[in-house]
């Protein structure tokens, strides 16, 4: 018995040692000896990687987009240049800058959408060439010991605004596969605060994948830094590679044949992501003053798991109108499935002359609350001379693709009931179908058996 215990213990210790060893990135001895000099050091072992990285969405903040209406197929779109009401600014009109001094405090601060760009701002979103390659902040994504005090804008001796980086040997010595923390450095506080934009928290408590020790890049597995994404109607830029639940789970993932039959018309997310969260609405036309006397857009927000999703047919193509960004699809097109969405409404200024949504430079309103000055500044940057700003609302459907649950997944009773979560009528079902689909007869015995097993 003791011998068996000892053997198991040794195997366990050995396993832990091997797995720990496997996590140590090769080349740390070189870094310790030669110091860390940014991408040049990384390129010693990964030649050509920096140049390839410049071609990705993480660097360009844009790509060609083929599944969204009313876009020019020859142009690239993304947070670099998009105009919508979750952000209303973008990298172009709301470029990182020192905002005008607050009239109340006389203080200024740095602000801009491209603070979440892995360059140094001198080599900015979409820049190319050797200087851009040298400017890449490899460690912000790959170091587990990054000192975030360095990751902030400052003015250099020439008065240029530079985005700081941690290029210390200490940070470089802990280089490796990005952890959830690395990804959430930028993705957590997008849209104006923690969990505001997408409203999901990838933690052991809230996501079955995280509970099983998985991190973001276990699903979003990249090749040449091209990171696969799903088809969130509001997330347009992509690296041309996609992921879906079925990549790992197949399209017949359940032991129960009845559940498997659902996968033809019901997306996995519909049952396995029963809640969403984050910002519900924002008003960019009237900003609120914060304790530091600067202004921020007024935002109504909920916690990560507090909001019931909206369900709609989605064939992975997107309606893109000035007042609506959301899923296209129908019950009868043969391509759509029912998906859950986080719904969001944003108020901003539209151009009464052509009905288009106007963008905003955040610097003026952040300083003194003057939102129309922000619109004027953005219009000037974009060369728009003939405009008349009028407030209006835009509805946006966000994909709900995280916070996956197995235990709290919807079951027959949640949907197939008169007060069930699926709005059958709105989804195109006839009254006779609805009567049948919401009658317990279709699942009564099966759920009764499960109920008995549970107790």
């Amino acid at each position: 018995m003791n011998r068996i215990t000892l053997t198991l213990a040794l195997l366990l210790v050995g396993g832990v040692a091997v797995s720990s060893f496997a996590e140590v990135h090769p080349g740390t001895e070189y870094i310790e000896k030669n110091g860390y000099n940014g991408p040049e050091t990384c390129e010693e072992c990964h030649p050509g990687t920096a140049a390839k990285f410049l071609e990705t969405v993480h660097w360009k903040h844009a790509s060609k987009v083929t599944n969204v209406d009313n876009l020019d197929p020859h142009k690239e779109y993304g947070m670099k240049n998009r105009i919508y009401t979750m952000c209303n600014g973008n990298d172009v009109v709301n470029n990182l800058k020192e905002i005008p001094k607050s009239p109340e405090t006389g203080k200024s601060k740095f602000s801009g959408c491209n603070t979440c760009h892995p360059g140094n701002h001198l080599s900015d979103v979409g820049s190319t060439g050797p200087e851009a390659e040298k400017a890449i902040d490899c460690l912000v994504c790959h170091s587990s010991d990054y000192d975030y005090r360095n990751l902030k804008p400052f003015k250099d001796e020439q008065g240029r605004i530079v985005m700081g980086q941690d290029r210390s040997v200490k940070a470089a010595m802990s280089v490796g596969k990005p952890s959830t923390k690395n990804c959430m450095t930028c993705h957590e506080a997008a849209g104006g605060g923690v969990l505001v934009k997408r409203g999901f928290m990838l933690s052991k408590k809230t996501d079955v994948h995280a509970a099983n020790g998985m991190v973001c890049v276990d699903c979003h597995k990249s090749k040449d830094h091209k990171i696969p994404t799903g088809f969130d109607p509001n997330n347009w830029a992509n690296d041309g590679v996609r992921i879906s639940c079925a990549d790992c789970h197949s399209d017949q993932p359940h032991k129960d044949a009845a559940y498997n039959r659902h996968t033809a018309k019901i997306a996995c997310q519909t049952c396995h992501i029963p809640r969403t969260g984050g910002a519900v609405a924002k008003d960019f036309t009237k900003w609120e003053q914060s304790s530091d006397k600067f202004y921020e857009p007024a935002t109504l927000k909920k916690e990560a798991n507090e909001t019931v999703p909206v369900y709609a047919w989605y064939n992975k193509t997107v309606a893109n109108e000035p007042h609506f960004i959301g899923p296209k699809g129908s019950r009868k097109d043969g391509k759509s499935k029912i998906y859950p969405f986080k719904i969001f409404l944003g108020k901003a200024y539209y151009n009464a002359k052509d009905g288009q949504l106007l963008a905003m430079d955040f610097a003026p309103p952040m300083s003194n609350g003057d939102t129309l000055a922000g619109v004027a500044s953005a219009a000037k940057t974009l060369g728009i001379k003939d405009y008349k700003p009028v407030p209006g609302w835009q509805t946006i459907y966000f994909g709900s693709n995280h916070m996956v649950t197995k235990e709290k997944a919807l079951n027959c009773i949640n949907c197939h009931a008169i007060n069930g979560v699926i709005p059958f009528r709105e989804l195109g079902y006839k009254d006779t179908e609805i009567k049948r689909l919401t009658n317990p007869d279709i699942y009564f015995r099966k759920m009764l058996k499960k109920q008995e097993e549970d107790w």
Partner: protein
Amino acid sequence: MKKFLSIAALCVFFAATLFFVTGTAQADEIKMVGVITVIELAGKDATTATVTLKDNKTGENVVITINDELTLDKLKDHRIALDDEIRCKYKVIDGKNVSSYFRKTAGC
């Protein structure tokens, strides 16, 4: 008589336990928004930290105890730092203001 006293003592013990346990569990959650003025963290392996927040509404300093792993990690690598404005919920447990929610208000 001895038996009666023992039962009475047991009852008192259980009543006291119930009072303290429920008293702790039902402590009111307090919400505040404030700016970090002090961070006290005992090294990289610390399992707890205290952060002083200056309450935006009252101007008073409130010392918050942080025990959760994610916030501790953010304090250690300075994702949360001095002068950051924080939205915080805490409960008073054993005389300490123990955080249950501690997030920066700012985003991009």
